[in-house]
């Protein structure tokens, strides 16, 4: 098992002819991922690393029966690329670029929901199911196969946690980079049911941070629906508060939403184990195993 990707995933790399696209397509192939097609407009007919390149996602699907796509394209072209992949009928689209305009993500989020599809990212390292497949740019050496499902808003905090886990002999079922943006394609709330249903996953690690209310929503869901142990970290307790601007921010968070204290309180009330820092996550996982 594992979630979202595995050995059967047939992946398209959008932007495969670019520097990053080619480099990471090769890394993914070496890891064992089935990269079945590349898409770069105007370069249809070429091959990169033995992978056929198409002008459009739709043609790539028709020719290769691909079922997922990852985008290695700049932020300003991300919206167009994601829409193309969703419109072509892919159920999983992963986008890694930083600095995608929030307004673009607002459209993508609602369009993907209406198509019943899943977008992961932006500003994400991608997804890896260790030992099976990876769709992303993470340095896969630190990951190891096992039973802990991980999802993280921050890439670096996730790497830190994963490398400690692996050094302690604790493997992972699937790790998902939710991404650090204001509107992620998929939130913790969207991903929790997948880990709950996955037989390989025995416990869930959630690496969150201050701001937004994804952790609060996750807490409510966990309380009612998740039977597996959940361990959470909220990073940024001592981060500098954004210099107050206007009153809208304060009005929205008048009930405490968004603060580390509020997130931890709600998660704890839902039975989630709260870790002080990345090292703390590993300590708790060890105890629970």
């Amino acid at each position, binding site marked *: 098992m594992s979630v979202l990707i595995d050995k059967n995933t047939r992946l398209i790399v959008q932007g495969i002819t670019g520097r990053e696209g080619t480099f990471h397509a090769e890394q993914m192939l070496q890891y064992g991922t089935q990269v079945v097609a590349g898409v770069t407009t105007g370069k249809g007919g070429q091959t990169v690393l033995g992978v056929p390149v198409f002008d459009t996602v739709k043609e790539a699907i028709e020719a290769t029966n691909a079922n997922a796509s990852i985008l290695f394209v700049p*932020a*300003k072209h991300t919206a167009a690329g994601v829409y193309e992949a969703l419109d072509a009928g892919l159920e999983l689209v992963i986008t890694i670029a*930083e*600095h*995608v*305009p*929030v*307004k673009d*993500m*607002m*459209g993508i*989020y*609602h369009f993907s929901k209406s198509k019943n599809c899943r977008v992961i990212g932006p500003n994400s*390292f991608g997804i890896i199911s260790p030992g099976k497949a990876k769709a992303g*740019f*993470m*340095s896969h050496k*630190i990951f190891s196969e096992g039973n802990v499902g991980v999802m*993280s*808003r*921050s*890439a*670096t*905090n*996730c*790497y*830190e946690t994963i*490398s400690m886990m692996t050094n302690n002999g604790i493997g992972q079922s699937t790790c998902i980079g939710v991404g*650090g943006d*204001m*509107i992620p394609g998929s939130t913790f709330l969207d991903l929790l049911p997948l880990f709950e249903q996955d037989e390989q996953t025995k416990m869930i690690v959630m*690496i969150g*941070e*201050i701001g*937004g*209310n994804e952790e609060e*929503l996750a807490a409510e869901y966990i309380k009612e629906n998740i039977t597996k142990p959940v361990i959470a970290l909220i*990073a*940024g*307790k*001592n*981060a*500098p508060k954004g*210099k*107050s*601007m*206007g*009153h*809208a*921010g*304060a*009005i*929205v968070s*008048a*009930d405490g939403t968004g603060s580390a204290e509020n997130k931890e309180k709600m998660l704890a009330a839902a039975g989630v184990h709260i870790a*002080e*820092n*990345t*090292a703390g996550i590993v300590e708790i996982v060890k105890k629970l195993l």
Partner: protein
Amino acid sequence: MKFMEYQAREVFEEYGIPVKKAVVIDSLENIDEQIKGLTFPLVVKAQVQIGGRGKAGGVQFAEDSDSLKAICAKMLHSVLKGHKVNKIMIVEKAEGISEMYLSIILDRLSKRPMIIFSSQGGVDIEETAVTNPEAIIKVPIYPEVGVQKYTVHYLINKSGIDKGLLEPLYDIISKLYKVFLAIDALIVEINPLLVCAENEIIALDGKVDVDDSALYRQPKVLEYRDSIQEEALVLEARKYKFLYIPVEEGGDVAVISNGSGMLMSCIDHITKAGMTVGAVLDLGGGATSDKIKEAVRIMLSNTDIKYLFINIFGGITRCNEVAEGVKIAMELQPKGKCVIVRLEGTNKEMGIEIIKSINYDVVSVDGLVEGVEELYKRRQQ
């Protein structure tokens, strides 16, 4: 990117939102000429981004030309709460009956724009949100639907204001939503939204925050950025596409890392160990030795900083590139500041070898926790 008040006013005016007549000055020459189109009494407002501007003396009233000149002479180039006043907005004084509040924000919960409205606007709106949340009304905008009149009917009935305000309020909300979309805003706020005689409403003060990721397609907004005061090191860092964030004044520890999550974790760890972080710098992904050199230089040029923790978990960023950059930077630096380097990930061993070849002021550690312990030890010496 947060607008100055006069910039917000300018954008509102461009989109037809009613504002009072105003001019912006940055010198005392020809004031009479500049205010020719304005009618006294006037309000003189310092263009600085601080809270409590009024109480700090940044908002004053002028009845005539003499008092205006006296106020401007005193205010221009003065320093309010640490911010230099480079620009002053002179605006006609408005006579109102009541103050309302209106904003459109990007709501992270619904992932849609949201209208926030209150009939009780003004400086105490934040307090109202806590003590009397009923007085604040929030309604989503569905982008495929836009602003419709039924929403404004609802706002009016729910807040109990005069039904005669329907048309002007509908007009203002529609226009504010246009602004929100056109400039890739995260927040557009009017507070107070002044109700005057005969159901006229006017935007008296505005706040606008634009999505930094969208600035590439907002050339006009980018022009505004030049007039916004920022710390010299923030601007210097921006040249290299780094994000420099001042944390706590007087903190003597700085952190450089490759990702905001890791920076937050570092600040959490260091604060918990009883030390104070003065500033942090986010390299983003994939920095080369040349860029690392600049990052180290920028950070150590902050005179408050005595200890620098460089914490890299390299995926796209390569550890040997980081180490090379640190080495070059340290050769150019005056001696005496302590630099602790933690490298993990791609090309870690190569990086550590290079760090160890630097003979002074630089320590290599293995792990984030170890790095913070080393920081603590050094500060005790």
